[in-house]
């Protein structure tokens, strides 16, 4: 019987495919469904569907989890293992993984691994159970989690051994009785997926628990302003940092979307005396930034980290002011490359959420997206098993750090923090030039000559006055 059905299905499929192929070949493009293929290649399937969504909704379309465009060319960078020139680390030597953030603060924050859970807000993004699960996993791994732009969710605070809270543009965590309960304060002025624009959660999407934590009135929308209330001048910002440091004694940092104006922004942050700077690259995710803000605004994480690390070194602030990188870091290799380029630690958001629901997403697919288990407005948030999710994320963090340790051993280091640009090489001359890394397909002693020749060639082309070939050799 089964064989009979199988044969019948096979025959129908064959006939359908044959008809479809025949029509595809014979019909003119204007009558041909295949038209969608070149159209999708030209427009891109994601953009094609988003065109339709905009046409249907008439307003910016909230896209979860950040831009699909991968701006940072991490795959063009590789670590250099060692064998004889220097030796790999013996396997019985412990690789140090801890990082202290805010060495100058009276109460510095020490994390056991250089990976933290990124700012994802309760209500604005995630459900209460998802936030608690993230906090539990962070505690198990000895690292910190971040409140995101939200009020103080006490259950999250209690579940997190180390809790970084965002002094935010909504004003929901900005009262002394709230920020005094934090282990570090991150003044949030922007994020990679949304720049510094305003955001609004309409009252219809705000439940009783959300309303209570945010202190909202009935029917009141939750609004994240484009500016931090009370900070309209650089002097206001400097005064705020000094006040928070004095009042709380915990590390106080600044979080911004990475931007081409980076050095100007960092200069003001240094003048204010921040303990750490969090840079969210253009690949940063969010619950619902518009595609334009995600795809067309900001600076890629890789270049942001490199430029910021160089700036801090020039200002002799490296080490005293910690650099935290975030935005599109999804593999341990990418995280470690950010550290080798100068970040002290990294935040992960999308990867953490995916790890959290990895074993439970079968509950939601194929009829609902996996994120419906964790998003505040998701249809299946009640189904999330907090303990199971926390354990999945803990395992993921442990595996990531173990893979990082393997790289450190191969590079002959005893600490993840010891990895530097010298342990990397690059496979793209422009990225190499921009990041100050050596180009992988040129021997170290010939780098200067190669780039010198390249500069002269570019100059000759630009002036349309080519140099004689012998000069280039």
């Amino acid at each position, binding site marked *: 019987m089964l064989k009979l059905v199988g044969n019948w299905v096979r025959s129908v499929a064959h006939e359908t495919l044959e008809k479809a192929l025949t029509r595809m070949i014979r019909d003119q493009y204007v009558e041909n469904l295949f038209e969608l293929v070149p159209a999708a290649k030209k427009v891109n399937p994601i953009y094609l569907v988003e065109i339709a969504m905009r046409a249907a909704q008439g307003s910016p379309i909230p896209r979860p989890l950040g831009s699909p465009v991968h701006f940072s060319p991490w795959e063009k960078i590789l670590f250099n293992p060692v064998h004889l020139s220097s030796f790999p680390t013996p396997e019985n030597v*412990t690789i140090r*993984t801890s990082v202290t953030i805010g060495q100058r603060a009276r109460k510095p924050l020490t994390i056991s691994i250089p990976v933290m859970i990124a700012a994802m807000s309760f209500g604005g993004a995630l459900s209460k159970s998802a936030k608690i699960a993230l906090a539990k996993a962070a505690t198990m791994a000895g690292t910190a989690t971040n409140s995101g732009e939200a009020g103080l969710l006490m259950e999250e605070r209690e579940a997190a051994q180390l809790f970084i809270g965002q002094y935010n543009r909504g004003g929901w965590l900005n009262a002394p009785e709230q920020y005094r309960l934090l282990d570090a304060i991150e003044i949030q002025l922007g994020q990679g997926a949304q720049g510094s624009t305003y955001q609004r959660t309409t009252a219809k999407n705000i439940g009783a628990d959300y309303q209570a934590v945010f202190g909202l009135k009935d029917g009141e929308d939750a609004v994240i302003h484009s500016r931090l209330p009370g900070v309209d001048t650089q002097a206001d910002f400097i005064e705020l940092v000094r006040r928070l440091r004095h009042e709380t004694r915990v590390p106080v940092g600044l979080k911004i979307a990475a931007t081409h104006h980076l050095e100007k922004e960092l200069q003001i942050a240094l003048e204010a005396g921040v303990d750490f700077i969090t840079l969210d690259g253009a690949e940063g995710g969010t619950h619902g930034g518009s595609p334009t803000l995600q795809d067309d605004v900001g600076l890629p994480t890789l270049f942001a980290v490199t430029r910021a690390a160089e700036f801090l070194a020039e200002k002799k602030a490296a080490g005293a002011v910690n650099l935290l990188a975030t935005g599109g870091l999804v593999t341990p290799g990418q995280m470690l490359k950010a550290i080798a380029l100068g970040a002290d630690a990294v935040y992960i958001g999308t990867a953490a959420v995916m790890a959290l629901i990895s074993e439970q997403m079968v509950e939601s697919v194929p009829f609902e997206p996996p994120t419906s288990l964790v998003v505040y407005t998701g249809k299946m948030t009640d189904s999330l098993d907090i303990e199971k999710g926390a354990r999945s994320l803990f395992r993921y963090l442990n595996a990531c750090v173990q893979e990082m340790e393997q790289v450190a051993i191969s590079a002959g280091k005893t600490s993840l923090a010891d990895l530097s640009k010298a342990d990397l090489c690059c496979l793209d001359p422009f990225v190499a030039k921009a990041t100050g890394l050596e180009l992988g397909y040129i021997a170290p002693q010939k780098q200067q000559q190669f780039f010198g020749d390249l500069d002269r060639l570019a100059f000759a082309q630009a002036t349309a006055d080519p140099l004689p070939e012998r000069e280039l050799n």
Partner: protein
Amino acid sequence: MSRQDLKNTLAYIHSEINRIETMAGTLSMTEREHYRKLSNFDDRAIMDIAAEEQNAARQLGTMKEMCLAMAQKIEEIETAVEQETFSGGSDRA
């Protein structure tokens, strides 16, 4: 608290932190060894315990680093107290 009491207290805290640092280092090595042994098993529950042991080793390593940093701070305070005693003595003289 007299200056001598302060010096004695600092010396006590310094010595105890050094001891905690040694204990954390030793326990970290023990936990790491447990991880190696446990990771030989294929059982999911045992692998979870192994991951916890490995993580405990890391956190104990972190405690060791924190103790080192604190010991350094206390040394700085001890030196400052010592110098203050000396300069205070000079003033009095």
